[in-house]
């Protein structure tokens, strides 16, 4: 919105915002938006963000439910699952057990849904949309229209994926990485038929959605920051969203290419990934293709994708931890540096997913070196979070609990990356439950915690009401314990060699142990899942009946809390606030002498806080004062 008006008299950059704001008024006066424009085909970033959120939560519920079903199979292999027949129909076979093909389909859908629909669209889509304009001081995204399209492409992608659950041959079932030739040949498994076609269509739509969103986030952060909001003053949330969008923009097109070639192989008879195949009693004509090519293309997205999922969660955590420890985030510069470092490195480690694919051992060596470098910035982030807590004054809001939980999960899952990144050790552990434990802790659970923390924290801004805290505490502790009880034991199984994506382990002597442990993990999974129902209740109940939120419930410094409790389209009623300081002036010494408590918001000029300014800020305070005086003269 801010971009498509142009006013000749806006000669001074600073005045730009005044005009947008006038325009915002106009907007409000002239056309009352229809319900459809306001809530469905909305261009308001806040509505779009909620659309992403609700869709993401829907998928999270479905994805979680799937995991409960296959955990039943794994934990209680003898159990009769007749009672699921009304839901699953013929996927429960005559003996009352889950069909092995459908087991794989469930695992595949669970992975796809969680990684892409929940933790990419649901997390990044929600919070990038919601927070970027509000925290950088913009009236909306650079292009509200593209933003709207971004959601509707995601919606279309969701619809297609959802339909694929109901086709006769079942949804895609080759694992969330859908490696060909399995995924390319309908005769290889039922899931590679129509289900796989729909998967590819859905993912293509999804990629379009991500790209539209990403371009918008990047443009908005670069162009629409309010006065004074330099990159060095961006909250870490915005840094994280920004780098995430860049990663997405550079890596998703590669996935698109991979998917496109797969579509060609499936329907046009090309041989990009296929060679020398004899299946279903006949030799296929394809020659010269390479399944390994697909793996390279896939993981060139796949590895950055894990950070696309994680970085926003880390950004959210930085904000929440600083706010609730009432203390500046420790090592802001190092935090930004490690986000950038991780972002860069994440593009040159992908082949650590392929150590046993038969690639050249020299490449294996190179990718081990690069992979282990990425552990360093990750470690730096963890240490900075911990130090932020040190000598703080910590308020355990539900958001804060989930953020602390995230840091713990990030560490616990991260350390096993050190082992997996070592190619000699990965030979034994690749594609076992050790990997499942690693990525569920470091990516799945940590990012999910970030998403939940973000919801608890920004719920008052989104809906103008507070979520219930007690339910939040219960939700946290059940989830936190549940997650550790589900995923920690998987390390033991992985070390013992249990392969992943196995319907049952009883066929092997080597995998006969851990029967009790498997049952235990399944029970823990059911408890952790049930705890999410408490959250769902709290979420929807509070949306309508929660306590009314004050304007700045957590005592935060960032700009979104200066906007009205229920901001309209355009976010601020008067001028957009100007930014004078970084976002982390919590518990600044002597702030009380300036009339502040334990936080000084970003829109407070340094010259109003002479007592609490640090030595290097005194100089800046004078400059700001002079500038503002100048500006007043111009406007007046």
């Amino acid at each position, binding site marked *: 919105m801010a971009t498509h008006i142009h006013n000749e008299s806006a000669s001074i950059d600073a005045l730009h915002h005044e005009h947008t704001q006038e325009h915002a008024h106009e907007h409000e006066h002239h056309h009352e938006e229809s319900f459809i424009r306001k809530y469905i085909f909305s261009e308001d970033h806040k509505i779009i963000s909620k659309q992403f959120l609700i869709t993401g939560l829907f998928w999270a519920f479905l994805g979680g439910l799937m995991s409960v079903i296959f955990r039943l199979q794994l934990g209680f292999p003898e159990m009769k699952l007749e009672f699921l027949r009304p839901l699953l129909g013929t996927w429960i076979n005559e003996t009352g057990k889950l069909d092995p093909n459908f087991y*794989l389909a469930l695992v595949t859908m669970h992975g796809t849904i969680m990684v892409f629909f929940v933790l990419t669209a649901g997390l990044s889509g929600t919070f990038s949309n919601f927070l970027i304009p509000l925290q950088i001081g913009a009236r909306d995204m650079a292009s509200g229209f593209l933003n709207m399209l971004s959601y509707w492409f995601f919606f279309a992608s969701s619809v297609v994926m959802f339909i694929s659950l109901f086709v006769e041959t079942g949804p895609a079932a080759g694992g969330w990485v859908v490696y060909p030739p399995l995924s390319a040949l309908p005769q*290889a498994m039922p899931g590679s038929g129509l289900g796989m076609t729909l998967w590819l269509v859905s993912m293509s739509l999804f990629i379009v959605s991500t790209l539209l969103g990403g371009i918008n986030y990047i443009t908005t952060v670069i162009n629409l920051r309010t006065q004074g909001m330099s990159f060095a003053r961006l909250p870490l949330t915005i840094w994280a969203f920004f780098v995430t969008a860049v990663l997405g923009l550079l890596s998703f097109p590669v996935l698109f290419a991979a998917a496109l070639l797969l579509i060609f192989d499936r329907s046009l008879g090309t041989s990009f990934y296929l060679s020398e195949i004899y299946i279903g009693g006949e030799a296929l004509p394809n020659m010269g293709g390479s399944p390994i090519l697909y793996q390279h293309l896939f993981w060139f997205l796949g590895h950055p994708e894990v950070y696309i999922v994680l970085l926003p969660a880390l950004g959210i955590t930085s904000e929440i931890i600083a706010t609730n420890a009432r203390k500046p985030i*420790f090592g802001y510069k190092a935090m930004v540096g490690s986000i950038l470092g991780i972002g860069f490195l994440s593009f040159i480690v992908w082949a650590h997913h392929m150590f046993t694919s038969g690639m050249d051992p020299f490449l294996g060596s190179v990718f081990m070196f690069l992979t282990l470098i990425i552990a360093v910035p990750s470690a730096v982030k963890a240490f900075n979070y911990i130090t932020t807590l040190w000598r703080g004054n910590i308020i355990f809001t539900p958001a804060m609990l989930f953020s602390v939980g995230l840091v713990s999960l990030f560490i616990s899952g991260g350390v096993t990356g050190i082992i997996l990144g070592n190619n000699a050790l990965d030979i*034994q552990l690749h594609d076992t439950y050790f990997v499942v434990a690693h990525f569920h802790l470091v990516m799945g659970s940590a990012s999910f915690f970030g998403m939940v923390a973000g919801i608890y924290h920004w719920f008052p801004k989104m809906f103008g009401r507070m979520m219930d805290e*007690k339910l939040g505490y219960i939700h946290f502790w059940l989830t936190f314990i549940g997650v550790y009880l589900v995923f920690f034991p998987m390390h033991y199984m992985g070390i013992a060699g249990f392969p992943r994506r196995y319907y049952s382990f009883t066929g*092997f002597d080597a995998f006969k142990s851990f029967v009790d442990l498997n049952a235990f993990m399944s029970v823990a999974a059911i408890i952790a899942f049930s705890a999410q129902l408490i959250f769902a209740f709290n979420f929807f109940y509070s949306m309508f009946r929660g306590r009314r939120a004050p304007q700045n419930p957590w005592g935060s410094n960032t700009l979104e809390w200066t906007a009205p409790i229920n901001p309209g389209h355009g976010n601020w009623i008067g001028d957009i606030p100007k930014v004078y300081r970084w976002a982390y002036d919590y518990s600044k*010494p002597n702030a009380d002498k300036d009339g502040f408590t334990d936080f000084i918001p970003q829109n407070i000029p340094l010259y109003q806080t002479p007592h609490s300014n640090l030595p290097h800020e005194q100089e800046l305070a004078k400059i700001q004062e002079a500038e503002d005086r100048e500006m007043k003269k111009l406007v007046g």
Partner: protein
Amino acid sequence: MVNFILGLIVCLILIIAFMLFRVQTIVSIVKGHPRVGFSNKVNAALMLILPIAGVIAAGWYSGIAAKYYLPEAVSIHGKQTDFLFWVAIYIIVAMFLVTNAALFYFAYKYQYKEGRKVTFFYDNAQLEMVWTAVPAIILTVLVLWGNKVWWNMMSIPEDQKKQALQIEIMGKQFGWYTRYPGKDNKLGRYDFRLIDEVNEFGLDFEDKASEDDFMPKELHIPVGKPVVLNVRARDVLHSVFAPHFRLKMDAVPGMRTQFFFIPTKTTAQMRAELGKPDFNYEIACTEVCGKGHFAMKYIIVVEEEKEFKKWYAEQKPFLENNPEYRGKGMKSLLKKNLADSEKNKKQKELAEL
């Protein structure tokens, strides 16, 4: 009926819980909302108690589950990777404990207290240096060590390569098939277009080396002798995984991969040691390949060289069992195909006339 009553009870409990929740909310609205209440203390205490309980439980379980972890390594490289693995595990467990302890202890210790003085501490170059350097050094050590083990495994000395036993293992939906080179120790040519129900490997019998190749039901290897597994797949990706040998290699259609190893313990020795007379080394599949992925089992038998030689000599080549394949190969197939297509063309032309 029982279900109905159970359902009713669940509903009642839910309703009661909801009422309690309502009352609590209303009371809290009426009483006003303190910024930080008693729950903060509870949460802080849990931050201390639960992680400690968790670590104790994990330690206890690690003890009793120790016998199920990594099975003993029975290959030379496996012993090297295991040593590195356990050292790395101790390092990461230490990292895990130290950092998590700091995290939760600080969370507990610095819980909200009215009037606590927060230290405005937001940057420290030395600290950042330290915790960049320490992980970097630890990782460097692990990387260099790992790299050495990796190359030990991947670069096969020339002499060993020459004397190594060449075995082919092929994955298909859903099973493993192995092929031995026979007396000449040379695996014969194959082509996927020659595959049929009997000739599972698609052996090309125009190649002399194929004539003595045999395909047993189990993978036999001699202890202490170098072995090269030549891995291939017929339909989709599979992956050979033999946990005791620390061996894993993807089976890729259209691309041959290899894994070199030296077994160190016979099946008989292992049976005696474990006291399990029916113990067997197993191969599993670790690349999802369809419905039967979880059931692609194959047995490896490691035996003394003498026994192995005896077994080897007893195996009958494929051609002996299926003499009709003698001389059949790619050349004859292509010739036949060409002739067929000529014939087809002729017929078509005739039909068109």
